[in-house]
């Protein structure tokens, strides 16, 4: 009787935990990537959870930027770059035949290492640029989208009086938040961030980190960082990459406090990297 009860309860429990765990937004299967003959990503299979922040860490040149650039098909834009394997976004392979990379990139936004606002455009036009590409012409819609995107990027209060100023007139940290607002304006589902703080000072960095924590409530965030403390501060899950291979992947707290692989531990304790 007791045994039977246990047997009844167990599968139920299992399935709920599985359901919780399997809310994957984007996942890769046997992903390989090359630059010319340089094999930079080797057989990466990683499942990224929805509405969580996933950090990708590893020493320079380990392929972490390439990995996230494969997630929105930016990798293939570099001459000589190619990849194999599957990247599945909400059950469909974004590398399948007939998939337009333009629509993929509208669903999977990206923020880059160095802030890259369009220098000839105003703050307003920078944020509205993506919407205008989508054919939005209505001024009230644009106004609302610009305001809400800037608010989500924690920038509205600082620039609401200067929307006509050129985007390049802002400070470095503000420019990076402008780029985040520009990415958010097209309403992506996933936001990729490629070392978004590496060109910023500590104060601006703290602001962006605070922003990332708030963004994961509505978006799936994948952040590449060479700063392990940053990964520990902002992410829920962490992947450790080394020489193009996924060494370890798991919950951030677990991975940092109790790494399962010797390589991970040596990297985290600063023995190499």
């Amino acid at each position, binding site marked *: 009787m007791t045994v039977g009860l246990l047997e009844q309860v167990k599968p139920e429990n299992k399935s709920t935990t599985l359901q919780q765990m399997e809310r994957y937004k984007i996942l890769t299967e046997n992903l390989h990537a090359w630059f010319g003959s340089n094999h930079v990503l080797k057989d990466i299979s990683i499942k990224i959870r929805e509405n969580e922040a996933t950090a990708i860490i590893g020493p320079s040149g380990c392929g972490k930027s390439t990995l996230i650039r494969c997630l929105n098909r930016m990798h293939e834009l570099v001459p000589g770059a190619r990849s194999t394997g599957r990247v599945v976004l909400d059950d469909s392979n974004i590398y399948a035949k007939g998939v337009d990379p333009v629509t993929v*990139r509208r669903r999977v936004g*990206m923020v*880059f290492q160095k802030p890259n606002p369009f220098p*000839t455009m105003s703050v307003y036009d920078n944020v509205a640029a993506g919407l205008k*590409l989508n054919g939005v012409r209505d001024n009230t819609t644009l106004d609302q989208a610009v305001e809400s995107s800037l608010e989500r990027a924690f920038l509205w209060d600082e620039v609401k009086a200067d929307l006509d100023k050129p985007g390049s007139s802002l400070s470095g940290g503000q420019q990076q938040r402008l780029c985040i607002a520009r*990415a958010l304006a097209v309403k992506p589902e996933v936001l990729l961030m490629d070392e978004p703080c590496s060109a910023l000072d500590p104060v601006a960095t703290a602001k962006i980190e605070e922003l990332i924590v708030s963004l994961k409530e509505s978006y799936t965030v994948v952040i590449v960082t060479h700063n392990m403390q940053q990964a520990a501060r902002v992410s829920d899950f962490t992947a450790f990459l080394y020489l193009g291979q996924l060494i370890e992947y798991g919950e951030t707290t677990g991975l940092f406090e109790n790494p399962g692989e010797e390589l991970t531990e040596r990297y985290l304790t600063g023995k190499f990297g």
Partner: protein
Amino acid sequence: MSRMEEAPLDHAGVQSSRLQNFSYRLSHLSGDDMFEVLSNVFACTAVVIIALTGIVLVRGSIPVLGKFGLGFLTGSGWSTTFGQESYGMLPYVLGTLVTSGIAISIGIPVSLGIAIFLAEMAPTSVRVPLSQLVELLAAVPSVIYGFWGLLVLSPWIAKYVETPLTSGLGSIPIFHGSPHGLDLLMGGLILAIMIIPTVSSISKEVMMAVPTSQREAAYSIGATRWEVVRMGVLSYSRSGIFGAAILGLGRAVGETMAVTMVIGGALGSEAVPTSLFIPGQTLASLIAGQFKEAESLQLSALVGAGLVLFGLALLINVFAQFMVWKVLKVKAGAVE
């Protein structure tokens, strides 16, 4: 230390110490000083050449300007008969503006197309040889373009462009005339072809200098290839492209040999550009076509044409600088 000691000296004392300092420096010229002197001298040459050109042109045109005054600019007469001389530059100023206008309105879009293809679309294996080929076109002497225009392009244009246009749209004034292929349109076309190599290769360089991060920014918000070019590349490099266009315009205004060979060489009021299909004349082609027989007042008139051309080129440059400053820098903010 020496500055502290010099401080209480009176004015004369300061001057004498400066003089000493100067003679000291003169007798102990270092490599850096030599470099400074030399570069100053070379910088001055540019100013001196412009000034001398201006002086010679003004002096040479004093007789004709004294005789006709402002009428030299606004008149359209051309008479070399002794005692009944009449010289007016209006038709040639207009002819220059019309041919240059045709040149840039055809040449710039084509050049931009070439530049976009080379900088953004073509793979390296195509870009490198094709870029060199385009730059090679700039090295072709203008007399060869003129010859080719005269013998090949002109008959073709007369037959396949001008004839249909005059018979179909002849009632519109600018398409009025007899299509023989040596006219203002042909002058403008040959100029368009001649400015393409310069404008396209400079535009290509400017576009290739646009940081990859700008293209990626456009791609990342879902831009198509053309939208990336427009949003990430063209807008970023627009001041450079504008500069290339002005350089092209400058060449079109001053280009002489090829235009002289194909423009028809009209004189006087016949050269007023009332239609694209009538023989015309530019300031440059007027000088080139007339200088051999010119003497006394006619020579002075040609020097005067040179002065007007000089002034026109100067005006275009000033206007271009103004446009760059006003339209691009101020409105857009920090461009480069």
